[in-house]
């Protein structure tokens, strides 16, 4: 087995930009129908982690780049106590850049984004839940949908998709104007509030089709409109509302990799004042189609890899690189988008498993310039839209969910971790449990 890995192209960004306010840690969770037993969960982690060697790593500093060293120490599961997407301190995690947490019926996996993307995390979560259910005496079968631990780790699991599909070409990135940035009041105690909205996947799909787009395009359009409608009265500037949408590259560039393999496309739709929703959805859908075509995504891979492949860039020492990457991210990344909408899509669980799993949730981390981000995934007919935010204002979320409920007639069920809300403030005086 390989003992060390280079960081992949996307992963190189995060060690440079991660801070207390931008943890670069996302979360995927599975809610089961009964309380989690910590010792069984630990057994499942011990079983599953060797099957995912690219997750069982610690990050080290090289002269020119960070790299991952295989980590043979044990990853301990812990009861959840921090807010979602809390920064990971590897020293406290036996060197790991990930956590496995449990609370009541929920198992959460939090991963530093350098290690893998949402698809890789979901694969891990699926295997983890599979062995958890198996060890708790449930009759579950993988049905070819879950990576089992008796399969050997294949080189294709650990391949760097960016390198595999890199086609050398010189690409001049298009110059884009700065996007509207959502401003708000920090929470008294800085942290992340998550609000989940659960609704019927087929219902949402029908609405999106009727409006003339995919679920992702439709949600992006509603988001744009919600941002515009809530913020225009509060002195919104002229800058466009841009939704950044991470795209899973494995679909167009076949790969079974469990490392990062995604690209981000930015979608905007011009003047939101005059566009009605159907037209907006159509516009977003068309733009998304164009930007996720094979050629466009090939261009994206090439442009991203070009940034690190230049000889001059490679030999810059790590500390200087860190500054340059941070600067580049501020100038050409964070300022060019208003919000991130990450749709992990439908998660396929074997039927023997899904009867024990209530739902799957995913939470995208907020950053100072993108203080509200949105994660979407579905299991069966239950689709979850999760907003993670670092600011008090819930106006955009409220407008968004109310639209789905009032104007589209969808039944939206919401719940939250209540960060910044009464429950947290009360907890300081009287612990309610």
């Amino acid at each position: 087995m390989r003992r060390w890995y280079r960081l992949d192209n996307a992963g190189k960004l995060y060690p440079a930009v991660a801070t207390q306010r931008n943890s670069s840690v996302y979360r995927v969770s599975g809610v089961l129908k009964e309380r989690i037993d910590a010792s069984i969960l630990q057994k499942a982690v011990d079983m599953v982690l060797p099957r995912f060697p690219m997750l069982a790593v610690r990050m080290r500093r090289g002269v020119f780049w960070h790299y991952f060293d295989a980590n043979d120490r044990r990853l301990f599961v812990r009861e959840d106590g921090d807010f979602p997407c809390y920064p990971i301190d590897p020293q406290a995690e036996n060197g790991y850049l990930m956590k496995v947490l449990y609370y009541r019926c929920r198992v959460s996996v939090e991963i530093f984004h350098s290690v893998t993307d949402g698809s890789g995390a979901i694969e891990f979560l699926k295997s983890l839940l599979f062995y958890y259910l198996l060890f708790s005496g449930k009759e579950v079968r993988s049905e070819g949908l879950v990576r089992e631990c008796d399969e050997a780790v294949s080189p294709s699991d650990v391949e760097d998709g960016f390198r595999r599909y890199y086609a050398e070409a010189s690409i001049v990135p298009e110059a884009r104007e700065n996007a509207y940035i959502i401003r708000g009041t920090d929470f008294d105690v800085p942290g992340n509030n998550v609000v989940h909205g659960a609704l019927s996947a087929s219902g949402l799909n029908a609405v999106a089709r009727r409006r003339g787009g995919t679920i992702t395009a439709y949600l992006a359009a509603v988001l744009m409109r919600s941002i515009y409608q809530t913020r225009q009265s509060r002195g919104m500037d002229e800058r466009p509302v841009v939704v950044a949408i991470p795209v899973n590259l494995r679909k167009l560039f076949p790969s079974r990799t469990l490392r990062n393999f995604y690209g981000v496309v930015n979608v905007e739709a011009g003047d939101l004042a005059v566009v009605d929703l159907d037209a907006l959805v159509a516009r977003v859908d068309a733009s998304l189609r164009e930007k996720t075509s094979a050629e466009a995504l090939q261009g994206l891979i090439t442009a991203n890899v070009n940034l690190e492949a230049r000889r001059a860039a490679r030999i810059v020492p790590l500390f200087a690189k860190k500054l340059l990457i941070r600067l580049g991210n501020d100038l050409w990344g964070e300022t060019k988008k208003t919000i991130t909408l990450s749709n992990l899509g439908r998660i396929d669980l074997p039927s023997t498993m899904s009867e024990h799993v209530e739902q799957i949730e995913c939470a995208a981390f907020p950053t100072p310039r993108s203080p509200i981000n949105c994660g979407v995934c579905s299991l069966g007919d239950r689709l979850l839209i999760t907003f993670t935010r670092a600011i008090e204002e819930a106006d955009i979320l409220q407008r968004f969910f109310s639209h789905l409920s009032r104007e589209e007639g969808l039944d939206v069920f919401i719940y939250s971790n209540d960060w910044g809300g009464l429950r947290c403030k009360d907890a300081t005086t009287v612990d309610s449990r």
Partner: protein
Amino acid sequence: MQRCDNCGLSVDNQHERCPLCAKPLGGRGESVLEYPPYARLYREEKAVTPRKLTVFVTIAAIIIVGTINILTASENPRPWSIVVAACLLYAFMTLHGTILSRSHFGRKVLEQFAALSILMVVFDLESGFSRWSLNYVLPVFSFTATLAITVAAIAKRSLWREYSGFLLAAFFASLLPGALYLIGLSSVAWTGALSAVYSLLSIVGLMVFSDRKLKDEVRKRFHT
């Protein structure tokens, strides 16, 4: 299940208020979807911590000493408070960066090397800059740093895994006295040469006595 009429949404029973508009909804029930209570994270941050206290004392002392220095300038025009300030900053750095810090031993050694060297140069400048700090102290310190890292690496038997990067950094630091001589800042050649040679020997020793992991480690650390 409860309903928030203001938002037009169904709200989970765990919530006393709507999570979006804070409208009161009624009772607080149990739910499988509940998150932890976060009481630990919400606890008030203490106003006085040892760290804050030392930060304040250090800043206060520097300002007071500087003020005295300025007020007594007619008696003694030398900027002696700079030496005191440097000592205070060094003490602060030693307390928090070395004694209380959880960082790697090799890193602490290199940080101490840098901090002590700067302190000595300040002393030297203050006492007329006869260059004793650059001529003798800096080479001795770099020698000591290299030795400390080598000893720790041998004692912990993890030369290549943990210490090679620090030893390499110490090697480059040991070239500094020689470099200072070449650009004319220091005036004694043999000390600089000695520290560079000693460090070079450490690196050579590392290569000669290392096992086959060496190649791997170099490849990892230096991949571009």
